[in-house]
Each structure stands twice: as C-alpha cells, then as structure tokens.
C-alpha cells in the first residue's frame, strides 16, 4: 500500500506543489513552477504585509522632531531646487505651465517609482538575516514596500493637490481633463513596473553585487531619460523615439497631461508601457521565484 501511494505522490509532486489528493498539505521540493507567485500564501500572511508597512512608517520617523512633516519637505525642496536650476538657470521650458505644479507633478510620481524600486531592489540582501532564519512568503516584503510607498505617495499627492487646487482657483493656466480618471491605472502601472524591476534587481544582486552599484546612479540617470524636468513636446524629434521607448515616459506624461492639461496623451504609448510592465513583471516573478528558494546559500 505504501509504495503505490508513494509513486503517486512523487508523480503529483512534479507538477504541483500541493498534493492534496494524498492529504499532504505541502511538498518541499528542489524547484517550483516558474510563474507560481504563491498568492494564496501571501493572502494568509496579509497581516504581516500590513505590519511591515506600519513598521516602515513608525521606524523611519522615530526620534525625529518633525516626524511625518518630512514627507512634505523632501518633494518641496526638490521642486524648489529644480525650479531654480532647470527652470531659471537652464531655462528649460515647462509647456507654458507655472513651474511649481509642473515640477511637483513630475517629482511626485517619479518619487513613487524611484523609492519603490530602490527599496525593492535590496529586498534579499537587506533582509538576508530574517530570510535565513524563518520562512514567510518572500513576496510579502516587496509588496509591503510597494504599499508603504503608495501611502507615502498618497501624502505627497495630497500636497500636490493642494498646490494644484490653488493654481486652479487663482488662474486659468491649468486645464485638467477627464483623463484624471486614469490616475489609479497610472499608479498601478508605476507600482507594478517598479515591483517587477525591483524583483529582477534584488534577485540578481544576491549573486552579483555589481548590479546594486549600477542601480544607485542608474535610477538617477533614468530620471533624465523620462520627461520629469522637461516636457515631451519640447524634445528634438531625433531623441523622441528613445525617450518614448522608456515605458515610464508615457506614464509621467499622461499624469501631467491629465492634471495640468499640457503635453500629450496617446493610448498607443500607454499601451506600450502596459505591455512592457507586464513583461517586466513576468521576468521579475520568474527571477524572484528562482532565487527565493535558495538565495540564502549565495547571498
């Protein structure tokens, strides 16, 4: 009786991680399916995701005097710097928009991407100690980062809305339109893209630390390849295809178009960004799954 069951279980194990038909709740094996994200497992650990988010917030601002006010200070100071350097010294045009909402819009959404990517890309190396001692779905970590950055974005977005509202009421330089309704989709794309890229980078850096180096300044350089500090419309034609090849470009551009009413919008470009996002997410998932099971041996 034993041997028959035995072979059956082995046969089942090759294709599925849960061999329910034999009453086993779990089978630990060398390799899992490439695309299995284990979302069911993540759902069971949803409390942990929220606790990680809470930990991020509480620990960041403990023992600071200004506390959460730092959320506002950072984008504001960055915007002012950009206004001075790019707006007034380099005189890069802003599509006829007031500089403050123009830069703030770009910075707010760019920050969401950059911070999420920065944090997810070190998930394995930064948490090696915890990951090496206890199992919980590894995905909870990058997910919690995406969520806590989303909250952070929400706060900074609030700041943007206040300034945006002020300009809206005081003049008619801004022309928001119905594409504003696309905002949740833009955020989703941005979040998934940074999650996907972050998963790729974090998986690779467990073995090859070089990538961590690359990412540090890479994100900074990428900002210049995205219409954050300049409008897409003022780009010389020969550069335009390259900038549009960057999937982030149309997301940032659409965001600014929807709220400020200048620039351009194209379903084609946004569709391209969506396609790239899905591809990146797919590759990221595969890489993450491959590494998550044995990275403690190489990290």
């Amino acid at each position, binding site marked *: 009786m034993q041997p028959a069951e035995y072979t059956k279980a082995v046969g089942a194990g090759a294709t599925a991680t849960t061999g329910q038909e034999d009453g086993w709740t779990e089978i630990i094996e060398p390799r899992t399916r490439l695309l299995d994200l284990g979302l069911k497992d993540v759902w069971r650990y949803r409390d942990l995701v929220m606790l990680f988010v809470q930990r991020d917030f509480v620990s960041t601002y403990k023992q600071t005097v200004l506390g959460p006010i730092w959320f506002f200070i950072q984008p504001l100071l960055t915007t002012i710097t950009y206004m001075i350097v790019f707006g007034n010294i380099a005189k890069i045009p802003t599509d006829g928009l007031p500089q403050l909402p123009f830069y703030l819009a770009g910075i707010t959404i760019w920050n969401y991407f950059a911070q999420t990517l920065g944090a997810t890309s070190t998930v394995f190396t930064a948490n090696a100690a915890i990951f090496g001692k206890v199992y919980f779905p590894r995905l909870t970590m990058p997910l919690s980062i995406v969520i806590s950055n989303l909250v952070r974005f929400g706060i900074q977005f609030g700041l943007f809305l206040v300034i945006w509202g002020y300009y809206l009421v005081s003049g008619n330089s801004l022309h928001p339109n119905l594409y504003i309704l696309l905002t949740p989709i833009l955020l989703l794309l941005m979040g998934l893209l940074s999650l996907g890229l972050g998963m790729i980078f974090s998986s690779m850096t467990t073995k090859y630390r070089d990538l961590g180096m690359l990412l540090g300044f890479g994100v900074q350089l990428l900002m210049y390849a995205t219409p954050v500090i300049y409008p897409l419309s003022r780009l010389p034609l020969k550069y335009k295809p390259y900038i549009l090849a960057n999937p982030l470009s149309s997301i940032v551009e659409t965001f600014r178009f929807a709220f400020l009413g200048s620039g351009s919008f194209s379903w084609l470009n946004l569709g391209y960004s969506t396609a790239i996002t899905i591809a990146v997410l797919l590759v990221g998932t595969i890489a993450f799954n491959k590494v998550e099971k044995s990275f*403690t041996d190489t990290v």
Partner: protein
Amino acid sequence: MSSNVAIKVEGLGKLYRLGEVGTGTLSQDLSRTWARLRGKEDPFAIIGETNDRTTKGQSDFVWSLKDVDFEVKKGEVLGIIGRNGAGKSTLLKILSKVTAPTTGNIKVRGRIASLLEVGTGFHPELTGRENIFLNGAILGMTKAEIRSKFDEIVDFSGVERYIDTPVKRYSSGMYVRLAFAVAAFLEPEILIVDEVLAVGDAEFQKKCLGRMKDVSDKDGRTVLFVSHNLQAVSSLCTHGVYLQYGQVKSDGEINKVIQDYSGDKGVKYSKQVKIVSEGKRAWLVDVKCNSIDDNDFKSGASSLIEIDVMSLEEINNVNIGIGFNNSNDYRVFTLYSKFKSKSYNLVKGVNKIYCETSSLPLFPGLYNLEVFIGSDYETLDYYDKGLQIEVEHNFNISYMHVDSTHGDVLVEQNWK
C-alpha cells in the same frame, strides 16, 4: 496508516559550494544552464562528496545532506542529533523552507512553524508591544491570534513594565525573554526547534523546556528538536535521528539512537583547530580523553587524559595545563601540572603525558579544552579554541535528566 505520518523525507540532498562565491560563479552558472538545457545532470553535482570536514576534499562542492530518508509520525517528538557540521542545521533550514533542497523532497501534513532563532525580525526602534505583533506575524500568526494571546505572552515574558518601551532599551535578557514568549505561543501542527533554548537564564530555560513538553504531550503536536544537549533530547524526545556527514547513521527509538551516537568512536573530538608547528620548538599533537575502564569519556568515571607533545629538542621543566570550559566559555576547572609541582623534561620526538582524575567532575555535555604547554618563562604551545570534547552520559550513575540548570560540576555525594 500513512495518514499518521506528519513529515516524510525522501532522498533529500543538499549541495553546497565551498569557498568564496564570486569569480567563477557566472561561468559555472552558464555551464549549469547549458547542461540543463541539454537535459543532462548538473555537472557540478556529480563531483560532490559527503561532508567530512576534517579531511580536505577534492572538489569545491560538498553534499551537506545526501540521501536522507525518514518519517515523523503525528504527535511524535523527534530529536535530531549529530556532531557539528553533520547537516542538522541544513536539514532544519530545508524543513523551514529557508532554503530549497538540491534533490529529493519532503512531504508535510500540517502547518510548520520553525524557531531557528528567537526574535527574528525584532526592530530595535519598535516597542515591545509592536514587536510582539510583528514577530508573531513573521512566525505565521494572524493579528487576531496574537491579540487573543497577547496577555499570556506578556505574562510569560515577564517584561510587562517595559512593554511600551522600544526594545533597543531592553537588556539582552529581557529581549530574549520577550522573543521566546512570542514563539512559545505559536500553535502550528508541526514545530521545529533549533538550539534556541541555549539562551536565557536558568529559570527561563526550565520554563521553556516545560512549555515544549506541554506542546507535544497535551496538544498532540509534532515537534522536531535539534540539540547538542543530549539530556534535553533524551527527556523530551521519543524518536531520534542521528546524522553523520550528512547521512542518516541511525534512526529509531531515542535511547538507542543516543547510544549509537555516543558509542561512535573516532568522531569523539572535534578538532576544528589546525595544529600549527611552524616556528615552534614543541607543539601539541593530540589530546585524548578516555575513561579508564573503556574508551568513553564519561561523567563521574575515573579518567585518563593524554597529551601528546612533539618536541624538536630536549626541553626541561615544562608544565602542562588543561582548562575545561563550558559552552559559555566559563572555566569549570583546570588541570595544571604545576599545582602538583610536577614538570616534564621533553625529549626529542613525541612525548606522551598523562593526567589521571579519580572521578571526572563534569555533567554530560560539550566542553572546550584550553591547552597550555610551556615553562615559567615561555609558552611553547597554546590552544584556546576549537578543541571540543563531549562528556558522555554515564549510565552507571543515575544522574538522569541533568540539564544545564544543574550547573556543570558533578560533585561526589552521599545522601544519608
């Protein structure tokens, strides 16, 4: 019935690469991928060897575990024993899903929680209360479960006064207490425990061992326990698995397995120390600790310790010192030839020096030896790390169930 089986391990193997991971890994990865694409076996897995760390292997790859098979029944407490480097931790890591096996599989019935360490994920800036929730969730509890046990956890830890203070202000003892308290209230079907009990004060250790016994006795849960503390293993476990060089050497009833383990000659001393002779006139070659009536080094038995010293020339007035340190590196006692005004005149070649004690005053367990060879004016040779010996259980003396709360020293005693 096979449904009584909680864990079934089949043909489990784990390959590790020794040395530095860095240069060469990229090319190895590529040839590995190439081999897999052609449907061939991993070219580096073939040359792997069993893991005997005392001999220098031929290849950079080593099987930390190889062809491990065993079963654990529901409600059973399994003790996993073996020398350092036998593969115990690797096995636990695979069971805890921290790392994946290279070959084979483990089938599990029920939810697993593992304690390879207590306090994993504690954040120094968070308060005790916040850390209880965070740590509990990392270990697999839901927020509601933790909330319902919160008072018990705080009570068990005994740090109620500090519960709203960041844990970075805790003493290390308080920190461990709180960490263990969270773990102690986990309620999985299968609990995996590493030697985490080695921490904390004696009273707390006792509480923890008691708590573990409760978990298996009253609640009928399956427990896997890994420890060097043979006393704890024999009192807690019903079933044992003895690992040697990554393979199952013995599997069965706990006392039989413990006897197999302590009866294994030739693996008695773990010499993690490299004997260095360079630049020395005389050096330690070997230490042998035996009881007089047989080869075991037994608690309470009259014992003979042999120190072999290689000398390049004649050296007069040499003293020998042997310190016995417990696992916390506290000196338990010292054998020093000078105490007895005895010194040795070394001759060229190997000198065998013996020290006899009528009754070895140590409880069973692991001890580290500190060996000194020298005169009043110079140190010829000295080792303070890596010479580990194990004092075996002595079945002639009924000191059953001695654990570390009883101290290290066995005193000759007569009760009237």
